[in-house]
Each structure stands twice: as C-alpha cells, then as structure tokens.
C-alpha cells in the first residue's frame, strides 16, 4: 500500500460497511536520539506517518494528557500506535503506558514497549498493564512489519464488530468522546489487549 493511498475494503455477507484505511500515525517515544532516528526511519519505510518525542512527559503533552491548556484542541488527533522505550529518565515507558491506559481518549490505542534488556518480570508487568507487545532492542525492520500487520488487523477487527452492529463497541466509542468513564463494560477492560488480540486475530485471516 503506497503512502497516502486509501484502501477500501467491503465486508461481504450482509455488511454494508466500507473501510477506508489511510496511513497509520505512530507516536514514537525514546530519549536516545540515535534510537529515535532509527525507529522513525523504520516506521516511515513501513508507510507510517511518524511523530517522535524525547520523553514520556513530552508524549503526554502531545496527547493532551498532561492536564495542560492544549487538551481541548486535540479532539482531532488520531494516533494509531504508540511505541515507547522502557528505560527513560523521568517517566518510564511503563509509567507512560499506565497513563495512556487510564485515559479515556487513548486507552484503546495499542502501545508497544521497547527495551534493550530481556527482563521477564518487566515484560510480564508491561503486558499485564495492557501493552500490545514488548520488543527487544535493537529493533529491526521485521519487528516493525509484524507490529504494523498486528495493528492493521486490530483496526479491521474493530470495524468488523461495528459492521455487525455491536452495540457495546458503539457505546464505548460514544463514551470515549464524551469522556465519561462510568460505563460497566468489564469484559473489555479485564482482558489485557494483547491476549484479546491473539484470540481475535485467528478469525481475521478470511478478511485478508
């Protein structure tokens, strides 16, 4: 799919839904200038639009989650994926993950954690908090390709459930924009997104 190309996908068998899929917008967070340059290139070469920031704090500012004045201008901000380093001074990638998952605006956005250290308790902690994946650095093109496929499957899956008039999903989307957090959809919130994604992806192969 070329950069900027619109993909239209019609879901057959009763659904009248048309899915348009413009390029993914990825927010990449890393305190290392070298790693920022590499991840930016990896994502651009994978046809993603990329915004890079150098810290968790700057990421929260960008997303309007820092309680600053800019928040009201950000309702049109579309971020499809957040990729963040784990070890950063100040706010770690884990802290950032938690803040994102606590927010109503961005909790559905997949978050991928990168780390140079293969520490199992760390990985488990991140996945438990809702990280989509944990990548070991140095990050390679194959890793980014795989993540992108995962994200696009997730997005297609969300549209699929919409097309089958899933009221739960519609209700959640409404709540997201009105930022009320008191809806009782515990089945969605209890399941870490990585596990949910794994069981749903098996149903998606027919879509591609």
């Amino acid at each position, binding site marked *: 799919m070329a950069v900027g190309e619109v993909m239209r996908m019609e879901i057959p068998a009763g659904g009248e839904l048309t899915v348009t899929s413009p390029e993914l917008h990825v927010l990449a967070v890393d*305190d290392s200038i070298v790693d920022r340059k590499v991840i930016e290139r990896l994502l651009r070469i994978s046809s993603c639009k990329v915004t890079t920031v150098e810290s968790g704090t700057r990421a929260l500012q960008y997303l309007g989650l820092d309680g600053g004045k800019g928040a009201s201008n950000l309702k049109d901000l579309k971020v499809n994926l957040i990729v963040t380093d784990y070890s950063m001074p100040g706010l770690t990638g884990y802290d950032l993950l938690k803040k994102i998952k606590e927010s109503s605006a961005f909790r559905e956005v997949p978050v991928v954690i990168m780390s140079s250290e293969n520490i199992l308790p760390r990985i488990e902690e991140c996945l438990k908090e809702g990280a989509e994946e944990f990548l070991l650095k140095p990050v*390679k093109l194959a890793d980014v390709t795989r993540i992108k496929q995962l994200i696009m499957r997730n997005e297609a899956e969300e549209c699929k459930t919409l097309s089958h008039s899933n009221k739960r999903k519609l209700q959640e989307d409404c709540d997201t924009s009105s930022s009320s957090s008191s809806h009782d959809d515990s089945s969605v919130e209890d399941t870490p997104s990585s596990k949910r994604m794994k069981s749903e992806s098996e149903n998606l192969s027919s879509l591609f």
Partner: protein
Amino acid sequence: MDALIAQLQRQFRDYTISLYQQGFLDDQFTELKKLQDDGSPDFVSEVLSLFFEDCVKLISNMARALDTTGTVDFSQVGASVHQLKGSSSSVGAKRVKTLCVSFKECCEAKNYEGLMLCYRCVRCLQQVDIEYKALKTKLQDMFNLEKQIIQAGGIVPQVDIN
C-alpha cells in the same frame, strides 16, 4: 573507467567484509543499510554521525563524573554507560557495545568501591574512547570508498556478509 570502478568496488567489498570479520560491525549495521535507499541515500552515515556525537557527549559526562576532586556518582556513570550501550547496539557498533557491557558490569559489581572502582571505570572509559574513535576512522574510510565509486560513475555494491 570501468576497470577503475571494478577495482573500487572490490576494495569496498573487501573493506566492508573485514570490518565485520574484525568485529567492528555486526548485523544491526546490515539492518541499517536495508533502510537506506535512493530517497534516503545518506541514512546510514547520518545515524552514525548522531552516534559519534552521542559518544563524545556521554564519554565527557562520564569523565566529569569520574573526576575524583568531588564525590563520584557511580550511578550517573552507570546510566551514561547504559545509554551508550543502547546506541552502540542500535547502530551495530559491536566492539563499542561489548566494551560498554563490561564497563556496566564494572560499575555494578560489588567487588570494588571508592578509588579502586573509580580507577577501573576510568580504564573502561579510556578503552571505549579509543574504540569509538577507531570505528569512526574505519567508517570514514568506508564512506569515502562509496563516494569514490559513485564519482567514478559506478554503483555501490550490496555486500553479502556471509
């Protein structure tokens, strides 16, 4: 002109292979080359420039931290080594990375403390300094060969490391 191009390409190929064989570069460098194309023809040299600037900055931070006229903050030294280890790993600077790994272990080992630990760290730092400069020189030579090939009207060959 063709004979010159062929000779330059051969030199380039041999030189690149030797850098891998001598452990200066590892397959992450190969990964970076995959990201370079006609649209971004200088990507690899740009990333490596950023890496060398990082080396200068972090090494000078560590030298300052290890200055024994004050109290040495070994955690600060450890943090800088960790960063350098990360960026060297991301660019495929194998020898630098290996030195950073031992340097980090040196900071974290409980065997030494105070002046002795400081001395060991300074030795590690000196080695890192020598190593990154050696890599910088080697890569400059490699990039120069690329330039010469292009100026002679040739194409820089893909080098298969295996």
